[in-house]
C-alpha cells in the first residue's frame, strides 16, 4: 500500500521532508515563542514608545518568576509537576525575614539555610513520589499546604526586612551601557538560566532528566538511576523556588506569609508557553525564560494601555495559553508515537 502512494508523493516529497524537518524540530515551539515576543515587543515599541529600560525592567520585575519557572522546567521535563513552588517562595521569604530580622543571623548564612531548606523540602516530596508512589500532583499539593502553613506559623503578619546588606543589594544597579541597568535579582535570574541550560544539555544529570521524561520505563531498563534523578529534579525545583523567594525579598524587601500564592501556576504556564510538553522529555530552559517574558510583557502592555482593567491580564494570559497549546497541537501530532531524538 505504501508503495502505491510513494510515486505520487514523488517530487513534493523533498519539499515536504524539508518542511517536515522544520515542523518536527523540537526547537520550533521555542522559536515561535521568541518570534511572538519580538512581535509583541515591537508592537509595544511602536504604540507606547517603549524606552531602552523596558527590556531590562521586564527581567527585573519578573526575576523571581524566571527562577521559579526554571525549577519547574526540570520537574516538568521528567514528566512530573510541582505545585509547591508558590508556597516555597512565600515560606523562603518568611524564613529569611525571620532569621535576619528576629534572630539576627548574618544574611549570607540565612540565605544558605533558606536554600538548603528549599532543596530538602523538594527532595522530601521527590522521595514521597518515588518510594511511596504518591502521584506528583498530590505529593506536591501536600507540599503546597505544608509550606504555606509553615510560613503562617512563622508569623501571621508581614515582616519588614530593613537589613542594611539586603537594602544595599536591592538598590544596587548593574549598568548595562546607556541608561540601562539590571538589578541583582535580574542578574541572578540570568545566571540561573545559563546554569540550568548547562546542566540540562551538557551534564549526565541533564540527559537523564530528558531520558526519564521521554520514557521512564526505558530509562529504567537502560539502567539509569531513575529514582535518584527524579528526587534530584524535585530538589532542584525546591532549591530554585527558595532562590526565587530570596530574589522576591530583594525585589519587595519584606516577607509575607501570603507572598507567591498561585505563583506555581504562573510558572507552569510560562513553561508551557515556552514550548515544553507536560508529558515530559521535551522543552528548553530558554523557552521558559521567553515564556515568563511574554507573560510579563502582557502585563506591561496592559498597564501601558491604561484603559484596560486588570482582569484583562488574566483573560489575555488564558487566550495566549490557548493559542500556544493549539499551535503545539497543530505543529504535530508529534510526541505521540516515538518522539524524534532521544
Amino acid at each position, binding site marked *: 500500500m505504501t508503495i502505491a502512494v510513494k510515486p505520487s508523493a514523488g517530487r513534493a516529497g523533498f519539499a515536504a521532508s524539508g518542511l517536515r524537518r522544520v515542523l518536527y524540530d523540537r526547537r520550533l515551539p521555542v522559536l515561535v515563542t521568541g518570534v511572538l515576543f519580538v512581535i509583541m515587543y515591537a508592537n509595544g515599541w511602536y504604540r507606547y514608545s517603549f524606552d531602552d529600560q523596558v527590556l531590562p525592567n521586564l527581567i527585573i520585575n519578573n526575576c523571581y518568576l524566571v527562577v521559579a519557572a526554571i525549577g519547574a522546567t526540570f520537574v516538568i521535563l521528567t514528566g512530573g*509537576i510541582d*505545585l509547591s513552588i508558590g508556597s516555597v517562595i512565600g515560606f523562603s521569604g518568611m524564613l529569611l525575614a525571620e532569621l535576619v530580622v528576629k534572630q539576627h543571623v548574618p544574611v549570607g548564612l540565612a540565605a544558605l539555610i533558606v536554600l538548603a531548606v528549599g532543596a530538602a523540602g523538594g527532595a522530601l516530596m521527590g522521595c*514521597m513520589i518515588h*518510594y*511511596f*508512589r*504518591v*502521584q506528583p*500532583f*498530590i*505529593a506536591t*499539593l*501536600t507540599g*503546597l*499546604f*505544608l509550606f*504555606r*502553613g*509553615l510560613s*503562617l*506559623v512563622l*508569623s*501571621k503578619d508581614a515582616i519588614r526586612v530593613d537589613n542594611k546588606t539586603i537594602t544595599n543589594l536591592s538598590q544596587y544597579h548593574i549598568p548595562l551601557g546607556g541608561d540601562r541597568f539590571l538589578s541583582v535579582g535580574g542578574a541572578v535570574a540570568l545566571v540561573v538560566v545559563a546554569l540550568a541550560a548547562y546542566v540540562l544539555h551538557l551534564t549526565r544529570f541533564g540527559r537523564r532528566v530528558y531520558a526519564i521524561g521521554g520514557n*521512564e*520505563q526505558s530509562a*529504567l*531498563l537502560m539502567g539509569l538511576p*531513575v*529514582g535518584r534523578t527524579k528526587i534530584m529534579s524535585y530538589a532542584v525545583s525546591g532549591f530554585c523556588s527558595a532562590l526565587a523567594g530570596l530574589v522576591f525579598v530583594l525585589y519587595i524587601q519584606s516577607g509575607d506569609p501570603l507572598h507567591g500564592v498561585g505563583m506555581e*501556576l504562573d510558572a*507552569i*504556564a510560562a513553561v*508551557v508557553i515556552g514550548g515544553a510538553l*507536560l*508529558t515530559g522529555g521535551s522543552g528548553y530552559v530558554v523557552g521558559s525564560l521567553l515564556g515568563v517574558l511574554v507573560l510579563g510583557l502582557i502585563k506591561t502592555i496592559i498597564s501601558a494601555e491604561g484603559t484596560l*482593567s*486588570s*482582569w*484583562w*491580564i*488574566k*483573560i489575555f*494570559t*488564558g*487566550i495566549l*495559553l*490557548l493559542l500556544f*497549546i*493549539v499551535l503545539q*497541537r497543530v505543529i504535530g*501530532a508529534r510526541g505521540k508515537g516515538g518522539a524524534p531524538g532521544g
Partner: protein
Amino acid sequence: MTALNWRGVYRHHLFWPAAILVAMLLFNLPFTPNFFSIHIRNGHLYGSLVSILIFGTPLILVALGMTLVIATGGIDLSVGAVMAISGAIACWYIKGLSNQNSLGGVAIAVLLALVAALALGLWNGLLVARIGVQPIIATLILMVAGRGIAQLVTGGFIITVLSAPYARIGGYALTVPTGVFIAAAVVLGMAALTRRTALGLLVESVGGNAEASRLAGVRARRITIMVYVFCALCAGIAGLMNSSNLADADANHAGLWIELDAILAVVIGGTPLTGGRFSIGGTVLGALILQTLKTTIYTIGVPSQANMVFEAAVVIIVCLIQSAEFRARVFGVFRRRPRPPAATPASIPTQLDKPVEAVR
C-alpha cells in the same frame, strides 16, 4: 466474625477512607462531648455533624464531578473558576431584577448560570477530546481566564443580593440543609447512571486506554466531553450554593483553590489519578474527611496560624496510608507473609537490585 471475613472488610476499597473518617469523628469526642448530638433549633437541624454537611456539600458536589473526569485519566483545574462564574452570573441577573424575591427571576438566574457552566464544560471537553490538549493544561486555561471572566461579569465588584428564594439554595429546606438534598440527588443519579448502566464501565475503559476503547467501539471522545460537561455542571451548582449561602458573588474568592481540595478528596477516596477506576462512595467519604478535618481544627482549638500545618500533616499521613508501597514498608515489618511482587514499574528496581545484592 471469621478471619477470612475480616480480611474481606480490610481489603474493601472503602475500608481506609471510612476508617479515617470514623477515627477523625471519634477524635473530636474528648474535645467536644456533644459532638454527635443533633437537635432542632428555629426549625433547623443543628449540630456539629450538620455543619460539616452544610459546609461540605459544595466540596462533595465538585469532587463528584471531578471523580468522573479523573476516572477518564483527566483532571479539571477550572472548577473554582466555574463556581465563580456561575455565582457571578446568577447574582448579576438577580441584581438587575426589579423584584429580587420573584421566584421566576431567580429560576432564570439559576438556569442562566447552569447553562454557562455547561458551556464552559463543553469548552473544556472539546479542548481535551477534539484538539487533544492535555487535560491539566486545557483546564488551566479556563482556571486562569475564568476568574477574569467572572470579574468581567461582576465589573470587579462584589455583588450582594437580597433574595429570599435565592438564599434557599444554600440554606434550609424542610429543616434539612438544601445542599444535602442536592448532593444526595447527584450521588443517587450518578450511581444509577454509572453503576446500573454500562456508562461507568465505558468511562473506566476510556480512562484505562482511550485508544483501545475507541477501537473497541466506545465513543471515547463523546464520553470524555460528557464527563467534563458533568464536572462543570456540578461546579456550577456548587457555585450557586456557595454564592447563595453568602448572598453575594465574589469573583476573586468564590471557590478559590477548591479544585485542589476536590482532587485531594477524590484521591483520598481511592480513585487513582491515573484513571480507569473510580469510587463514588469513596469520593463522598474523601470530601467528608477533608471537611471534618477543617471543622476539627476549629473545634479542638488548634492555634489559628497552625491550621494549615496541621491540615497538611494530616493530609500527608492520609496520602501515605493510602499508598500500598508505604503500607507494605511500614506495616510489612510486622508481617511475616511474603508479598507477591506486583507487576508495576515499582517492582522492577527491586528485581534488578536483588541479584546484585545476592552476588555481593
